[in-house]
């Protein structure tokens, strides 16, 4: 039986085609016991049903045809993208899909005990290479979405973001057919973060593997990603858990959710909080432990987004929002002494080399 909605813990890396890379990764993490805010995925089957129900495939194919040999025509590209996105966003949601989303949303409300629950609605593309770092942020993502109607509306927008002017040429270049590009959508409870940021499970500039590097800002992590303010920066040894580096910067702005306006706003950080570390020592160490476990779980260095919830108590206040493989650092060959000649030879060569003063 075709499923239009799957809970995160029902997914995993085998479900990439169904829910997209991002959700699959969240599912993996939840099942491995990591603290992920709860949520569900609208599957690619739902998208397919939507396309079928509204008979979109053929229409879209026709709309794209003139672009085929004119990918460099930016105006045409923009215009085509605009028209297709409009078409998708104004098409009707099939009853079955709508019901599935609606009941999942209500269940989530019940589970968290919050009416009109605030959720994030994020795209989760199924084509693996479209979800890697170089493509991050190309698909739509919506924060602070409330109520079934809004959720459904944003799901459609995520789907339509398969046709943004950035994405289309990429698919053409890589020979991905348009009807093969599918999309899952994550619907996830919003964390109400006191602080948030990123964590690399190795030292990004040197590739050092025994530390994690954590960057943190007050409020939502968007403040860091958007470059709104300079984050606090820490390096924690993941073996000894010593905090090896700590650079507290002056954080003048933060992005927080404003209840009255019902949206995220840029807020000036009060003076007494600006030069204070966003993270306590125990939070730093707990984050490091989680980072270390995630890295071990994937057997690869990771780039992790996290948040510290305002309302919950340590250690339940730490949430992992996303984890992706860290792709930038390439391993350098190290020139280490060989064991063949025995310890004595190594000692001799070490003494003879000495310490260079530059």
């Amino acid at each position, binding site marked *: 039986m075709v499923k239009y909605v799957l809970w995160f813990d029902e997914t995993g890396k085998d479900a990439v085609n169904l829910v997209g890379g991002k959700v699959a990764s969240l599912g993996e993490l939840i099942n491995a016991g990591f603290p992920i805010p709860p949520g569900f995925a609208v599957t690619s089957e739902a998208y397919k049903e939507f396309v079928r129900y509204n008979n979109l495939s053929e229409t879209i194919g026709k709309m794209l045809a003139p672009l085929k040999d004119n990918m460099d025509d930016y105006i045409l590209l923009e215009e085509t993208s605009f028209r297709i996105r409009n078409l998708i966003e104004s098409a009707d949601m099939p009853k079955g899909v709508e019901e599935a989303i609606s009941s999942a949303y209500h269940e989530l409300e019940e589970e968290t005990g919050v009416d009109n629950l605030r959720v994030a609605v994020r795209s989760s593309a199924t084509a693996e290479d479209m979800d890697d770092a170089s493509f991050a942020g190309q698909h739509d993502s919506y924060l602070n979405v409330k109520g079934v109607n809004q959720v459904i509306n944003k799901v459609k927008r995520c789907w339509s973001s398969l046709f943004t002017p950035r994405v289309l040429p990429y698919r053409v270049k890589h020979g991905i057919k348009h009807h093969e590009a599918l999309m899952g959508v994550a619907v996830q409870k919003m964390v109400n973060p006191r602080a948030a940021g990123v964590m690399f499970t190795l*030292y990004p500039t*040197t*590739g*050092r*593997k*025994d*530390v994690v590097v954590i960057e943190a800002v007050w409020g939502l992590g968007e403040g860091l990603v958007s470059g709104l303010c300079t984050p606090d920066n820490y390096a924690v*040894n993941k*073996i*000894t858990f*010593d*905090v*090896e*580096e*700590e650079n507290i910067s002056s954080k003048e702005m933060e992005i927080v959710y404003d209840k009255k306006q019902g949206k995220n706003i840029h807020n000036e950080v009060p003076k007494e909080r600006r030069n204070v570390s966003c993270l306590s020592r125990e939070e730093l160490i707990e984050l490091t432990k989680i980072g270390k476990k995630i890295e071990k779980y994937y057997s690869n260095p990771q780039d992790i987004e996290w948040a510290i919830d305002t309302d919950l108590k340590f250690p339940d206040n730490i949430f992992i929002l996303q984890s992706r493989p860290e792709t930038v650092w390439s*391993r350098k060959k*190290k*020139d*280490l*002494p*060989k*064991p063949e000649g*025995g*310890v*004595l*030879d*190594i*000692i*001799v060569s*070490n*003494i*003879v*080399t*000495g*310490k*260079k*003063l*530059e």
Partner: protein
Amino acid sequence: MTENRRFPNPSDIETPPGAEGWERMYPYYYKFDDGSNKERFEYENKALWFYDGLHYPEPHYPFDLFWDECWFIALSQYNSRIFMMPPALGIDHRILNGYVYITPLGVSDPEKIEKRIEIFKKRAGYYYKNWDTLVKQWEEKMEGIIDDLENLEFPDLPEMEDESVVFEAKGISSGYLLLKEYQKLIDLGILAWQYHFEFLNLGYAAYLTFVDFCMKAFPGISMQVVARMVSGLDVILYRPDEELRKLAKLAIKLDLQDLFKGTVETDAILAEMEKTENGKKWLEEFEKAKHPWFYLSTGTGWYHTDKAWIDDLGIPLASIKGYIEMLEKGENIDRPLDQIREDRERIANEYRELLENEEDKRTFDELLGLAKVVFPYVENHLFYVEHWFHTVFWQKVRELAQIIARFGVIEGPEDIWFLTRFEVEQVLWDIVTSWATGTKPRGAIDWPPGIEERKKIYQKLKEWNPPPALGTPPDVITEPFTIMLWGITTERMKEWLETAATGEGEVTDEVRGFPGSPGIVEGPARVARNVEEIDQIQEGEILVAPTTSPSWAPAFTKIKAAVTDVGGIMCHAAIVCREYGLPAVVGTGHATKQIKTGDIIKVDGNNGVVKIIKRD
């Protein structure tokens, strides 16, 4: 290091006003050349001389320089003549305005190095292979000479010799014996330091090789983390403190804890103990612990002013009191040995797992294995030599000083430190000769005013700030001690050059030293100048001390971090803080002067920086 970035030449440094003539307080060969000999002058200006603040935070008392003379020979000879450390010769010493400066010497001829390599491998290989057996022998040798030292007796010079000299036909006088015992005292001192370095150079070389491997394999890893993978658990430097913990538990078990209420009056406590059966039982254990564990200096042991527990039983008694109080509050005072052992294994294993192939893992295993074998000696020798031997030695010199003072050559026993060991020998000849002839020693006329003069000079030297380095930095340093103990690195050079540029004595809110133990922490400072002050330390304070020694151990169960004036990566404070997981910045030079009790300070044990955040 480029030519233009250099330190002042020794000959550029002026004598502080009022300290003229300081040179006469030290052996002639410690003097920098004033230009009268071109060859020596050039050699001295081309070398890098750094101030040995690690061992000597204060200018030298003429007598105390003896230890420097001893290691001047001993360290050097093992590199240069015995083990034939391939590229390294000895460490040369000089004194400038009372402060010791040293420079490592190397072998530059590649052919010579090649030849030395073969010999070194054979000789060092023998020691590495038989390390544990040889160390056992070493401990016996050390205990033997400490025994000899304790058995030294300086005879008083009698009005008339006992008749046994005649009827037992001894054929010698007390005067002869006095001279002989002094020679023996000096001889034993030299011997202790010959032994001191028997294993140390090789120990450092093996350990440093492991450190270097880790630095290459895990770029950015701190020395402290490497030390944690290696450091021993059964290090005897912890034993004295463990004895105190045991005595505290015993006091409670025997229901004697009330004797430790109020201020600690040594005589009163010991007298009360004598009165009961349980008290006597406790005293018995107390006596057993004394030898040798109370021969623990409260300083580094290098200065005669460093008091040992045995010299003032109030120090260990106050610590026992502290432990009793903790026990009564239900606190655990045992070292978390299992935890430490587990951590050590875990850290080493997890680092090993970061290596990329089996070959590297094998190298890691072998180097770590050897480092673990050599490390206990690297830590333990300190107790035998600097603490135990030195403590007995200072006691013996004080005994001798009583006799010299009786003949009026010095005004009180504590004036002996203003004479060099060579001068003391002359003084003894002076005394014995005049005793034999029935006259008065000449020294009684010359030395008292001479010593007064020296005290004034010493005071002036104490007020002077020695520059961190002199002369020209070399391109490469190969001498293991220079790297490991004094941490001579590019960064250190830069720092020194900066210090030289900004000048001394500026008030700053930052104090720099060696990163002794990792971690960053903020809290109120407690400046304790000596071990007697540690009972004032409150839970959660940051200890700021000139230096620490095992007798400070009770302090480490309360504090959040430690900062010291003196010490390197292997100093007591660094070792203990690593064990307890507390940040430490050591070897800051002047933290106790710059920081005040109650200041809120931030200790960054990763980078060796202490910041004064708030002062009321």
